């Protein structure tokens, strides 16, 4: 099994082994073993659902820090549109751009602009592949990973365009390099991320070999730095800013609104995404042209590395996209020009999306069949309460862990009690047997 990078990590000292996270994980990638959560790297899609679930904050997102800016001669911040929904005190996006420059970035390029570019590319993509339906947006890397792990049939349905982050990064780097004459590799491009999935996409890109983004910094990690700086001083403009449509991508349905198509479907929240993809996989949504699927509730505004309540953030995002409406036509025209200048290929998905094995009970079919038979027998003996006390999310998952040698049947508290009862009965029987020496005496 290839080992893959994951940005979601466990802080062991904080984990109480409560088993809350194992039940929420959409790929059943987590177990509690010896009192601590353990993540199976082959199954984890970095959706961050466990980060959101854990009340002990034992799940964390490993990302870059502002220290890392020092490695570069010139740095560019790429704020996800969702960032602007997070700071109640800011009068508008410009103040936040200014704060980003204050904390060390030389320049800012809004990812809303990348979103406008990708909207344009997706439109063209849909026209060039009129037969393949539905097309599934590849904007959320957690969803793309989910497809790689669980729905390999659907990989060909994922739109062959890169993400808004990627588009913004490539354009910003190229423009800054030619404007200031700085070599590409001396420019540090950092995504300001609402989530773990994007960190993973930066460090281990989904399709391509090479990432065009140098790092990702969590919104929650720099929130404190930003909040103390907004509302104090001046305002700054980013080099590129998207349209109100580009901003609205941060909310679920935002991408669909930008595309302006009929026969489309938006879904948010990873468990809803799962339910929807299952039916796409069953071929029951062939009449839908395009699907926007986001792992987080309410969309990226509800990402696991954000700080604000997702619905408050969502409402604020609507206000913000209204506020930037004035510059929208110009922004859209600019995005079109950029696509024409660089060409669609520049923004096309780099490389192929490959299936990721990780769900199968065994790679050898004969063994898998035998294990599956055994699994069903073990499962029939378990109580079927899915209580999670064994450290596996469901009785079925526990039976699988038993069959695969990762757990023992008596890790189930009910099985343990049964076994103890049996032992106790044996002991009682033994205790009641008369000792031969005493027996002889009684006989007489």
């Amino acid at each position, binding site marked *: 099994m290839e080992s893959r990078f994951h940005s979601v990590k466990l802080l062991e000292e904080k984990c109480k082994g409560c088993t809350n996270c194992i039940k929420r994980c959409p790929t059943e990638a987590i177990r509690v073993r010896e009192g601590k959560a353990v993540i199976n790297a082959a199954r984890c899609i970095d959706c961050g659902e466990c980060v959101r679930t854990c009340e002990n904050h034992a799940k964390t997102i490993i990302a870059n820090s502002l220290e890392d800016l020092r490695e570069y001669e010139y740095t560019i911040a790429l704020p996800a549109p969702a960032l602007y929904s997070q700071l109640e005190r800011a009068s508008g996006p410009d103040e936040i751009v200014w704060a980003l420059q204050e904390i060390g970035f030389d320049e800012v390029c809004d990812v809303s602009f990348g979103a406008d570019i990708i909207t344009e590319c997706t439109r063209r993509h849909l026209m060039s592949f009129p037969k393949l339906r539905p097309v599934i947006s590849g904007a959320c890397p957690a969803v793309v990973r989910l497809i790689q792990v669980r729905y390999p*049939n659907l990989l060909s349905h994922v739109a062959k365009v890169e993400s808004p982050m990627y588009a913004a990064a490539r354009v910003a780097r190229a423009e800054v390099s030619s404007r200031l004459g700085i070599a590409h590799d001396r420019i540090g491009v950092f995504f300001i991320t609402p989530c773990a999935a994007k960190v993973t996409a930066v460090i281990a890109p989904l399709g391509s070999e090479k990432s065009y983004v140098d790092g990702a910094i969590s919104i929650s990690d720099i929130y404190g730095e930003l909040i103390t700086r907004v509302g104090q001083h001046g305002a700054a403009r980013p080099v590129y800013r998207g349209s109100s449509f580009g901003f609205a991508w941060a909310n679920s349905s935002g991408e669909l609104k930008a595309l302006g198509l009929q026969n489309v479907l938006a879904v948010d929240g990873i468990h809803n995404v799962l339910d929807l993809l299952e039916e796409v996989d069953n071929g029951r949504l062939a009449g839908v042209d395009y699907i926007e699927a986001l792992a987080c509730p309410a969309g990226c505004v509800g990402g696991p590395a954000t700080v604000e309540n997702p619905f408050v953030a969502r409402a604020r995002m609507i206000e913000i996209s209204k506020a930037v409406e004035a510059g929208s036509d110009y922004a859209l025209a600019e995005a079109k020009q950029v696509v024409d200048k660089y060409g669609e290929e520049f923004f096309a998905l780099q490389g192929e999306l490959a299936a990721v094995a990780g769900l199968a*009970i065994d790679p050898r079919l004969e063994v898998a069949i035998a294990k599956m038979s055994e699994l069903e027998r073990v499962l029939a003996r378990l109580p079927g309460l899915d209580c999670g006390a064994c450290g596996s999310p469901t009785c079925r998952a526990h039976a699988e862990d038993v069959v695969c040698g990762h757990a023992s049947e008596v890790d189930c508290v009910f099985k343990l009690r049964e076994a103890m009862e049996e032992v106790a009965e044996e002991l009682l029987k033994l205790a009641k047997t008369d000792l031969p020496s005493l027996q002889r005496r009684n006989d007489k």
Partner: protein
Amino acid sequence: MYRKNDNGQAMDPAEVTPCGAARPSSEPVLEMSFEVGHYDFAAAGEAASKIKQVLRKLGMAPDVVRRAAVAAYEAEMNLVIHSVGGSILLHVDTEKVTLVSCDEGPGMPDISLAMKEGYSTAPDEIREMGFGAGMGLPNMKRCSDSFSIESEVGRGTTVTASIRIA
């Protein structure tokens, strides 16, 4: 070799299949049986969905999983709609996935007519629910590498669909 009855409980290996159909005999095998209730629309689709999960866990090729899931779904809906309920037997060996749908329902008077695309005896209220397009059996056949129907009016119906692995 183990056999399962409803929802995966182990059954005596000596037991015959619910329909008494001859069981294929290459080892190792997995057999599970799923009960399907007449007009039980709340649970309709669950058997197909469980079968899909099992095949996925076995690491089957995505295309095999998809075809088997479609065939299982059509068989299941026919048990719900056209019969008195029944069972779907899943049989997996190293060569193929076999689905056997058995019921003791009304049977089919004319199998080749039932196999025609667009032919359906589904009543109006069922059509209003979006079923009864008459594509189920043809679809099952299209998804299978071998497909057969045995049916006797007044006795019941057995539909067998096999999908070759690799």
